[in-house]
């Protein structure tokens, strides 16, 4: 009778032991998940800072595009005027700002076409296709190694 009871209790103990092991594993896993998540958050935070900077710069590039267009249209008779020179200098300021943030213009015209930073929007039809950039439709920029905006180009 007693032996039977002991057996029963041992079995029960074994069951409980298994259960507690399971719980412990689950707990460890949850804790590990949490710690890993924390680490992940730290990594993400860093990349988010970079991301928000490059996103802001991406939005600013629209102004630079318009500004560059504007400078292309300076009437000839005004070109030498001090006032116009001042405006041209603003462009220099903008370029310095980009440089300070390690933003660099992607080289285009004359370069071999590279789909990792160039996007071909058209090709000049010719018999001698060289796969190089003929002209730039929209300037591209990179921040360090990271491409903020690919350059839109016509290739030949």
């Amino acid at each position, binding site marked *: 009778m007693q032996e039977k009871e002991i057996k029963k209790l041992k079995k029960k103990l074994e069951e409980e032991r298994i259960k507690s092991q*399971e*719980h412990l594993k*689950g*707990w460890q*896993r*949850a804790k590990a*998940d949490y710690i890993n*998540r924390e680490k992940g958050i730290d990594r993400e935070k860093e*990349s988010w800072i*970079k*991301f928000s900077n*490059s*996103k802001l710069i*991406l939005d600013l590039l*629209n102004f630079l*595009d*318009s500004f560059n*267009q*504007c400078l*292309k*249209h300076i*009437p000839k008779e005004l070109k030498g005027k001090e006032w116009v020179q001042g405006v041209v200098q603003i462009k220099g300021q903008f370029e310095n700002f980009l440089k300070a943030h390690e933003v660099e213009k992607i080289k285009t015209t004359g370069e071999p*076409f590279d*789909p*990792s930073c*160039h*996007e*071909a*929007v*058209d*090709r000049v039809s010719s018999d001698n296709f060289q*796969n190089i950039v003929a002209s730039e*439709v*929209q300037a591209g920029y990179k921040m360090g190694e*990271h*491409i*903020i905006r*690919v350059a*839109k180009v*016509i*290739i030949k």
Partner: protein
Amino acid sequence: MSKIIGIDLGTSNSAAAYMEAGKSKMIPSAEGTTVVGGKAFPSCVAFTKDGQLLVGEPARRQAVANPEGTVFSAKRKMGTDHKYKIFDKEYTPQQISAFILQKIKKDSELYFGDKVEKAVITVPAYFNDAQRQATKDAGAIAGLEVVRLVNEPTAASFAYGLDKSEGKDQQVLVFDMGAGTLDVTIMNFGEGVFEVISTSGDTALGGTDMDEILVNDIVGSFKNEQGIDLSNDKMAMQRIREATEKAKIELSSTLETEINLPFITADKQGPKHMLKKITRTKLEELVKSIVERCRKSIEQAMKDAKLNPASVEKVVLVGGPTRMPIVQKFIENIFGDKVARGVDPMECVAMGAAIQAAILGGEEEVKDVLLLDVTPLTLGIETLGGVMTPLIERNTTIPAEKSQTFSTAANSQTSVEIHVLQGERPMASANRTLGRFILDSIPPAPRGIPQIEVKFDIDASGILTVSAKDKATNKEQHITIKDSSALSKEEIEKMKKEAEKFASEDRKQKEMIDIRNKADNLIYTCEKTIKDAGDKIKPEDKKTVEEKIEELKKVKDGQDLEALKKVNQELEDTIQKMGAAMYEEAKAKAGPDQSAPSESKEGGPKEEDDSKKNDEQEPIEGEFEEEPQK
């Protein structure tokens, strides 16, 4: 154990997702359309003349340069004998798809820093056996074991949690509008299984058509106004396309936006600028015919399923264009308010695949033991002026514990009532009462001096214990509330909605009470200062302050918020000036006289001494069950 990922292998775009801690997350594509590497990428594969393989964005970018070496939409040819002949080499559609899957495998391995060998891949519901087999083969070629193919509409329904809906069978309609294709699927969900009843669609209808119409309209109206055709000006078109895309997205949340492109072009007269207002109404007018074309596919699917709109219980929207209000309105006009919401329609297929992958990978088992719940609504207590002060914000994962120290509102207050509340409204009376209890025998002290620590503790099963302890005497009372989360989903939703509805009214009322509390405090401080200072202040100063106090008392309980703010500020300024003058005078006397403040400081401990007598009594613990609701 390596992760099983979920893959949305789409006609125009592909994406992948995985499960982490019970949540599906997108795996970023190494390069992408957006800044840090987008989530989805074009389903495009290319071979350059020098034998380089390109997949995704780079392949799309060089398509114009290398049309003969570029393959788009290989999915449309899956399961056929079609062969892509590229530079004297032949590729089957599954080989092309395999390149896309390989890229996903590589990106995922880079992301996890671990091997990825298994995947769940989604396919359109209408795919036949040959097409399904071809998809599996593509996986195998890419080195991925396809543990299951899941229908795209089923995956989307999973992402929206429709598989969790209990009870009777329901009919689900999935409206999937991608960049270039429309798929409508009707499914029956019952006993945990989604069964496809009918499918319909249009292989040449999608978001791209809408963009095209809008760009054409803008270019057309510029031509009308300025007489210049921009459609051959690559640079101008590039700028217009980008601005249009941005405007389209903005118009999903605003009613009006503008396309502002200075120096878009020039003629002999000089530069020309584009400045055009676009309203949502105008956009909707333009794309209306495209949206209308979807009706045929919906009707066909319903006819085949022998259903009418009323018998469809849930509608799931998939794809970017379904974010547009006009598309949502169109669907609501047919089906009423049955649209499932809350998941990004562009990500839901990949996310659903990831959920399936997690279930197949056995991650669900782990979750069963450690399934952690959240509190559906905010929990807090009522504080001065009938304000609800939250302690545990809604959506907090439980078990959780939080404590905050409060004080008394009146002098010699010997008891505080802890009114435990649940809800999102700032005013106590608008929330649900979970229970209340009184902590008494607080030693008499000036208001603000006693420290009452209130602690909220919810265990994993949602049982909430609220305790309040007087830090001076360690006397404690507590209440246990068993069903803090016993509200039905509908009740919770109702409470959240009400909170949104009354948000601005509530904010005003809360502001009123906050300023009233502030006024109360100020009056108390001023009166005390005058009393303590005795004859150290000039009678005329004293009179001014007293007048201001009277004035503030008068407006305090009125409804004029602005007047209250004004008088409050005036009294504050006056008392500060008076205080400054007192210090000046003290300095002038050259003998610091600090008897006033120190006297009051000593007052506190004295009273605490009295309290020690009370402390000798055993603290009475009271247990309060939740009171039945009114």
